[in-house]
């Protein structure tokens, strides 16, 4: 998609592979990034349609459409998996990470271009398996948390759960390889003068995220392997009858699962930092604090997992520890929020679409974050646990805040990626539709949760009808906003104005804005040299000189 029109100028993009081989055999970080973004867009449509089916069923009390309630559970499961593993992760890490980490650090490509390619294809294979899983047999009706014994062979005898397990194995392997690639790229391929402390915060965010992926995903792989052998080869890891323990799965899953939620939000933090700095025309406030806050979040993220298990019967002292440890994360996160505000303070803010999404992100993330602090308390979480309060919490932080960061990133970088600029007017409209939609969609779910409505139910007591209807109306608005986004993509490629190398002006100081738009097939073939200047976001203020 990226080079359809204006590519072909300049000495940089001389011969590059053409035809299908260019994509299938690709060893180019931009092409691979583009494929990741397309994959994410496809998965978002599937996961979105599933979520709208869920909201349609829940619009009114009673079973509307899913006489087979197993299918409802399958939809919830597939929706969660798709959105987490095949929409947000591929777009943020594989898509924008691939595209812009090399560009921002002045590297000509990723460290291991061939491995980069297999990371993508494994993700695609995982997506195929995951979507198939919903349609084999009776599907995996386990929730995305796949707790045994419900996910064991006795209660899910078909092949669906095995499809799900292997989908995650393949996508997980792809992500681990991708993480190695990103870390080595950042450690080994920074342009002269681009010290760690001068890297843009997006690169920092991806670096920390890659470490989380590297250390958390193998634990999931181990847990899934045990589930697979329990199901098919008669082992007893999670089977009480053989002396195993269902809680083992929960520990392992959440030991991965909690870092996973930061895997989703940290790249979003990075994107938001770039956007806010650019459109405030100011360097990021408290650069080092921002970078190390992400490291702290990543680290603490590994020692709080059991806050998802407060009602599972773990000991009281353990719950006390996890309460305190979990709340600590609010501190580095607060540093980030306030530093963003301080970045805007004194700035000269342009409310372009990416900035609107960044501001929307702040709103959504703070609301979702503070309800996380409520849930952190084991002494009160048991009232909200497994209710829509949790659903509201994680859609605010994960679903919509992260999706807002992705929309922001798309509008921010599409000119650089495609050479075409989006329509500002359409994007602003899409922002407002989506912003109103998601708040109407998810805010009432707090009320439902406090009132006691459990998650993962296709039908609910009549008292919950009111807010559920409101929520479903919100989903309908969101659907309009989503479809409009796809229209805007089409519109950009069809009618978009040619993008300049730097469409954002003085605020956009990172290296990707020094190369032409669209970024040629090969960039930074001559390494830029970064002088001492403003920290991080503004390395260029010290001036980029061409290599001698």
């Amino acid at each position, binding site marked *: 998609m990226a080079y359809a029109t204006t590519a072909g100028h300049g000495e940089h993009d001389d011969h590059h592979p053409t035809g299908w081989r260019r994509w299938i055999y690709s060893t180019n970080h931009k092409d691979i990034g583009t494929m990741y973004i397309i994959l994410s867009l496809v998965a978002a449509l599937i996961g979105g349609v599933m979520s709208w089916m869920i909201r349609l069923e829940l619009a009114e009390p009673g079973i509307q459409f899913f006489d087979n309630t197993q299918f409802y559970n399958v939809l919830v499961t597939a929706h969660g998996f798709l959105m987490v593993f095949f929409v947000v992760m591929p777009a943020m890490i594989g898509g924008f990470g691939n595209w812009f980490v090399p560009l921002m650090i002045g590297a000509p490509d990723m460290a291991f271009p061939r491995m980069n390619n*297999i990371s993508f294809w494994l993700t695609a294979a995982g997506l195929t*398996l995951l979507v198939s899983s919903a349609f084999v047999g009776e599907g995996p009706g386990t929730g995305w948390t796949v707790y045994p014994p419900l996910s064991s062979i006795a209660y899910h005898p078909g092949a669906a759960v095995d499809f799900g397990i292997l*989908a995650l194995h393949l996508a997980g392997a792809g992500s681990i390889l991708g993480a190695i690639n990103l870390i*080595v790229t950042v450690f080994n391929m920074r342009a002269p003068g681009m010290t760690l402390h001068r890297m843009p915060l997006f690169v920092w965010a991806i670096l920390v995220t890659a470490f989380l992926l*590297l250390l958390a995903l*193998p634990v999931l792989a181990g847990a899934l392997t045990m589930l697979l052998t329990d199901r098919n080869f*008669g082992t007893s890891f999670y089977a009480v009858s053989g002396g195993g323990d269902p809680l083992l799965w929960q520990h392992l899953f959440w030991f991965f699962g909690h870092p996973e939620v930061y895997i989703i939000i940290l790249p979003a933090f990075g994107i938001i930092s770039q956007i806010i700095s650019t459109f405030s025309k100011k360097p990021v406030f408290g650069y080092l604090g921002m970078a190390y806050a992400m490291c702290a979040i990543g680290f603490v993220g590994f020692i709080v997992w059991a806050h998802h298990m407060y009602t599972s019967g773990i000991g009281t002292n353990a719950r006390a520890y996890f309460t305190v440890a979990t709340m600590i994360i609010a501190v580095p996160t607060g540093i980030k929020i306030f530093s963003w505000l301080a970045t805007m303070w004194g700035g000269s803010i342009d409310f372009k679409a990416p900035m609107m999404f960044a501001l929307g992100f702040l709103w959504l993330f703070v609301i979702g974050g503070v309800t996380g602090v409520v849930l952190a308390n084991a002494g009160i979480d048991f009232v909200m646990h497994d209710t829509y309060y949790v659903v509201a919490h994680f859609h605010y932080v994960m679903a919509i805040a992260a999706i807002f960061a992705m929309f922001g990133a798309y509008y921010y970088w599409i000119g650089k990626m495609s050479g075409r600029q989006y329509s500002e007017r359409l994007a602003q409209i899409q922002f407002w539709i989506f912003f109103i939609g998601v708040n109407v969609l998810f805010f009432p779910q707090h009320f439902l949760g406090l009132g006691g409505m459990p998650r993962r139910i296709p039908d609910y007591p009549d008292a919950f009808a009111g807010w559920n209807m409101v929520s479903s109306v919100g989903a309908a608005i969101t659907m309009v906003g989503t479809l409009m986004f796809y229209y805007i993509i089409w519109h950009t490629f069809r009618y978009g104005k040619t993008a300049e190398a730097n469409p954002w002006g003085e605020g956009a100081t990172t290296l990707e804005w020094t190369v032409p738009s669209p970024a040629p097939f090969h960039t930074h*073939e001559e390494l830029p040299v970064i002088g001492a200047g403003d920290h991080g976001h503004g390395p260029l203020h010290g001036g980029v000189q061409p290599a001698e």
Partner: protein
Amino acid sequence: MATHTTKSHPFHMVDPSPWPIVATIAAFTIATGGIWFMHGGPPWILIAGFAVLIVSFFGWWRDVVNEAQSGHNHTSVVQHGLRVGVLLFIASEVMFFFAFFWAYFNASVPLINSAAHTTWPPEGITPFHAWGLPFLNTLILLTSGATVTVAHHAVRLNDREKMVFWIGATAVLGFLFLGLQAFEYHHAAFGLTGGIYPSTFFLATGFHGFHVFVGAAFLTVCFFRARAGHFTPNQHVGFEAAAWYWHFVDVVWLFLFVCIYWWGSAGYHGPAGH
């Protein structure tokens, strides 16, 4: 790109390659074939998947070796990147084993898990005697750790004959270990389906054994590469990766030996396990 004869940076721009997609097709085939097989289907698809996988590994690494031998792709900067990559990969492998050790301690240490077994091994399980065959295997792996280090010195000194010999010796010790472990499995007093003890035992030691196999195969490749003169004092990343991987396999075994074989059979005072 092949078209760039002169480039102004030290990095390796890799040509487009069919291997990633071929390997992915193989992985996909293994996954679907495996599911079919586990649910009563024939094994052929699974086997075909593995065959394609081996072909793609072979092709992929052949390309890497050729690039390394070309003389200009693997600059010292690229070599550094490769080394960091290997270390990161090993870190992720450590976390994979972490999951199995967690399963083991979750089942056996009441301090960690209030529902853990109070006697370990659980009743009815006759564990192996740690100081028999497992200890012999420990010695073998420790020795192989030493031989691979000797080989490393030889590589640094560019002593081809010595490096070939010691790499070969390490690989042989690795296969010897595998043989003994197969013997041990064969004489186990418990089967895979016999509950949580065999589950943790076989999966933890089994995955370790698989890693020994991978490491030994890797060393075997290094053996032939050493004979072909691929390793020089300042370019031998492939060997270094194999050596590091081997040390990692070694250390995992030490943990397995101490935790599962030794401590895990401490409650048991019967005759030797085999």
